[in-house]
């Protein structure tokens, strides 16, 4: 699968950037408008899915290798847990919104407000985007095996067990 025609490729190259920016927008404004880390993360992932449909899997894998995506996945989850633990350290209890309550209340309805909520949104966005990218790419990399059913009991261990 090497991708589609030049027209599709060019246009999806542009649209991909727009979708990506839209995803970032959804994530960053998650505490003010509808959306948030999950919706934004899925949008980030779908921008790469578009790229995959237009250019083929190889191209996308060169852009964002699978091990890197896996690390980003772990990193996002870890960052979110870190925000929660920081609440324990600075705010007295796990998941305390310490930034808002203690240090930086901010102005309501501003982009930089609400303490740890935007930080959590970014972490979740990173995590969700990376993990969905990972799963779609992994699922489509199985393409080569299609229709080639192994004979039952092909694995060595299962043979040993059945006899």
């Amino acid at each position, binding site marked *: 699968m090497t991708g589609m025609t030049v027209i599709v490729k060019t246009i999806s190259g542009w649209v991909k950037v727009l979708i990506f920016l839209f995803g970032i927008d959804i994530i960053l404004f998650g505490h003010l408008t509808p959306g948030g880390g999950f919706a934004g993360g899925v949008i980030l992932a779908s921008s790469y899915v578009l790229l995959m449909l237009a250019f083929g899997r190889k191209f996308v894998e060169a852009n964002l290798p699978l091990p890197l995506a896996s690390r980003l996945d772990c990193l996002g989850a*870890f960052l979110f847990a870190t925000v929660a633990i920081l609440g324990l350290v600075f*705010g007295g*209890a796990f998941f305390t919104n310490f930034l808002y309550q203690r240090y930086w209340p901010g102005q309501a309805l501003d982009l930089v407000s609400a303490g740890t909520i935007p930080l959590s949104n970014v972490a979740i966005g990173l995590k969700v985007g990376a993990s969905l990218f990972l799963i779609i790419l992994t699922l489509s990399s199985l393409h080569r095996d299609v229709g080639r059913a192994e004979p039952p009991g092909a694995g060595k261990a299962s043979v040993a067990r059945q*006899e």
Partner: protein
Amino acid sequence: MSRALPAFVVVPLVAAFLLPVLGSKGKAAATLLANLVTIALLALAVACVGHSGVYEVGTWPSHIGIVLVLDGLTSLMLLAVNVVSAAAMLFSVRYMEQYTAKPKYLSLFLLMVAGMNGVVITGDIFNLFVFLEIASIASYALVGFGCEHEELEASFKYMVLGSVASSLILLGIALVYGNTGALNMAYTAKVIQQTGINAGLAFAMSLFIVGFGLKAALVPFHAWLPDAHPSAPAPISAMLSGVLIKALGIYALSRLVFNVFGVSIPVSWVLIALGVLSMVVGVFLAVGQWDFKRLLAYHSISQMGYVVLGIGLGALILAQGGNPLWASLAILGGLFHLVNHAVFKSLLFLTSGSVEMATGTRQLKQMGGLVERMPYTRTACTIASASIAGVPPFNGFWSKLILVIAAVQAGFFGLAAVTVLVSLVTLLSFLKVQRYVFLGELPEELQDTRESKDSMLIAMLFLAALCLLMSLLILVPSLRVAVLQPAVDVLVEGVNHSIRVANL
């Protein structure tokens, strides 16, 4: 001590997030880290015994935010979960060398532990559902870890039934929320106590019974267990049979029945019926099995029947307004059997894994005479078999004895007879295991079988020692008052307990 509660979830979660990053090069480091985590959690669980308290996540008071609750039942379950997970993790060090992708396995293992701990410590119904899903999804993936035909199929079956159960539970939670306007267990309990059970809550209760019954594999809902538990790698089978079905099924169900909805006569009868059915059907299906792990899996169903029977008997006595002393005796029997089963069934699965790794087969008829080749495994297996069959000095005997006494005291002579009968059939079935695996003639192709080494052996001997030592939990009064009695009191006190703890 309740300040330490989030650690039961956060520590394994953070470790699980870090492990896949280490990749295949850091395999030794990953194994070490995972073992440290489970051992630290075990130490923490031991330290939590005898304490109680409420932890408010995010400093929000209980009716707004999520609370974590530490009480007698929670600390008992934490102990059971973390003892078995420490042993199974230690066993995995060597056993999982035969598979690829070990760091990912360790990560999933820790996620499962975190999910179970989360289910046990939470005081919020929806939060219970979320952590139940973590533990379940990790277990679906782990059942299919071998990626062979049977594993995949068992995993699919398990996952479909598990997802149906999750949907039913979520619908039940939605109904509870729609009728009470809250999700906190104590607050919900208070509202239910004031308004009484209406049709919506009764339907929610039946959804919970079916949903958690599916998770616990009680008999009409047991179809997935005999496939899923044998297909998983041995340490995972030990975790699934040992603690997962208890933490996700029995614990969650009894928490909701006793501490949120309050006991009622119909629900108690349903529990007793489920218990007796599981006990009898499980054991008779087990007798005819020739696959070592499959036989153990069927016995899990049967032994879970004992636990549910004890809890149901207690609920019935309480609901009928009978003597709370007999109710607490029945519940004591059920809960003690729960922890006992956690220990001896996980030990049995570990020995079966040890045998399978050494011989390459699980079929009883292909083995024999392993007593000379694998003396330590044999000793561990004999101890566990004696425990599960209820042979006197071991822990299983005491819990079954208490159950029989409670049934007689409550006037259910038939139930007491069935309990003894099932125990005898269990004994018969494990004599068969002993006969075909360890005694008899050593087959030609198994001549060069070797005993399992280091980490596997330590894990098995640790659990075997526990099988003996746990009798002390019931025989030494001070230990009983410290560990078992608080757990029983939580259930006997019922709805009032959760309201009292939450200061509502």
